């Protein structure tokens, strides 16, 4: 590594740097090697989709970045500092909306702001603004049970988005429980919100179509043990056309790679760059 690169790194350091991360946990049939020697850098303001078959450790990696899980070995740095635990400097959206049933939509979005002792009027204004952007201004005072499934997911996204100091957004298959039509709408809301105010997004999914539609870069992980597979750079302009030849070519390429990666005979092809 040259000196100039080191100097440049100080200014444009990646928001996440994972070094030799290994993780084991006890499953129903013995210990599972969930992550094996994961090395990854996520540049600022990148929309990174992590994709892979189940058991490839993609959700585990997200939980480690969230601070909910401590890796067995190796380190993950957030802004060059080790992650000590969960915190409001990262926004998170779970697979289920995980809203607080006892708070209205607005109060749910305000939750993170309230916990950070942001003055009430300011928190309210900010939460209202985010809710308007995701198209939920008209249901702010309802309770979660009064919303449709898709709306609840949008509230979950808004809650994460409202955090003022969260430069990193972690999304763990946030729309996987939603039907296909609504999922596309939610993806559009997400991309629209992201384009207005870019932040780093770490988005875990098992849906190839979703990854190609959303991501700047796609990381394909390989299973048992979970490890880095291949990266795909996606340079298509947004909004992307799901019917374009380019879109579908990339989809088939990733599908093919994913099938290959599920086959244990294909091994150690890690870290090959592919651009389209």
């Amino acid at each position: 590594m040259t000196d100039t690169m080191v100097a440049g790194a100080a200014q444009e350091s990646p928001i996440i740097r994972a070094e030799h991360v290994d993780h084991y946990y006890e499953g129903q049939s013995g210990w599972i090697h969930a992550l094996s020697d994961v090395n990854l850098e996520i540049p600022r303001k990148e929309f990174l989709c992590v994709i892979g078959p189940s058991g490839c450790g993609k959700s585990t990696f997200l939980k480690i970045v969230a601070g909910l899980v401590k890796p067995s070995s190796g380190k993950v740095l957030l802004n060059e500092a080790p992650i000590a635990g969960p915190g409001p400097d990262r926004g998170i959206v779970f697979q289920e909306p995980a809203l607080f049933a006892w708070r209205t939509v607005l109060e749910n979005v305000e939750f993170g702001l309230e916990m950070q002792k942001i003055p009430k009027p300011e928190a309210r204004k900010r939460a209202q603004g985010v809710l308007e952007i995701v198209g939920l201004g008209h249901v702010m005072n309802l309770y979660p049970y009064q919303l449709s499934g898709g709306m609840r997911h949008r509230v979950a996204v808004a809650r994460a988005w409202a955090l003022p100091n969260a430069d990193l957004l972690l999304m763990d298959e946030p729309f996987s429980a939603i039907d296909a039509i609504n999922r596309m709408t939610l993806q559009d809301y997400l991309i629209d919100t992201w384009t207005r105010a870019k932040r780093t997004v770490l988005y875990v999914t098992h849906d190839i179509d979703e990854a190609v539609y959303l991501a700047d870069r796609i990381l394909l992980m390989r299973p048992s043990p979970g490890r880095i597979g291949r990266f795909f750079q996606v340079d298509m302009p947004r909004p992307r056309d799901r019917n374009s030849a380019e879109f579908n070519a990339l989809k088939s390429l990733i599908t093919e790679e994913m099938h290959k990666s599920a086959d244990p005979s294909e091994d150690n092809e890690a870290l090959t760059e592919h651009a389209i």
Partner: protein
Amino acid sequence: MTMQDAPHLPVRAVIPKTVAIKGARTAHDFAKYEKTKKRKVALRKLTRGAIGIIGLLVVWHLMSVAYNLQLILPTPLAVLRRVFAMLTLDSTRWLYGPNVYAHLLVSFQRAMIGFGLAAALAIPLGLLIGRLSSVREYLQPVITAFYPVPGIAWIPLAILWFGLSDKAVIFVVFMTAFFPIYYSTEAGARQINPLLIDAGRCFGANGFGMFYHVVLPATVPYITTGLRIGLGGAWRMIVAGEMLASAQGIGYMLMEARFHFRAVDLMTAMILISIIGYLTELLIVRLIEKRTTEKWEVKAN
């Protein structure tokens, strides 16, 4: 026709028979229909409940009259008259000191203080022990050791400690109401969806904020169940405690009525306890539920 009859048609469209509809039906019509149906169901429930109660009263009355048991089993009507007489402060054959409201008030105060103290200690303790393994490891054995001792067993010791006083009765009420509230709260706190705790942590809640803003509201359905059982226990215990350790209150009235061989007054006192117990349940537990679980549409699973 089965699938085997038409092997060349793997998929058969099933066309539903159209329902004969007289005139156009709107959502409004269906809403009206549903509303009448609901009203009918409610009315039926009420009628059946009334039949049960009336049945009991009839059997009671017949027993009393048929076996000439008025002295030890007065008729329902006699008891009802006595309830009315007492509540209107009719002094005929009144043998129990000041008046019925004074006794009710004393019992009410004792029950509420004992129950209130129990809730004030049991809820925070249940939340802490349910969530924090360190606290659980220290305190669970202590609570488990006390739990099997029935509240009534504390009465002699309470008399020894506090004399024949308010404090003795409040103490046994506390010992009785504490455990159901504590155990419900603890079970609820332990069963909170871990995802909600994760969400709380990720969005910056910790320490007191986590308990106040996440753990407590998530446990409310269990807490109200505990409060309901604890309140019932408190009223049962107040009577037992006052029978043995007090010279006033509704329990004292019961004991005195027995000494005077006044079955009608015994039964009257029992009915008053039932009424005041129901009213406090309505005022405390139902009110909390209306403002929490019913508003949020959440239930204990």
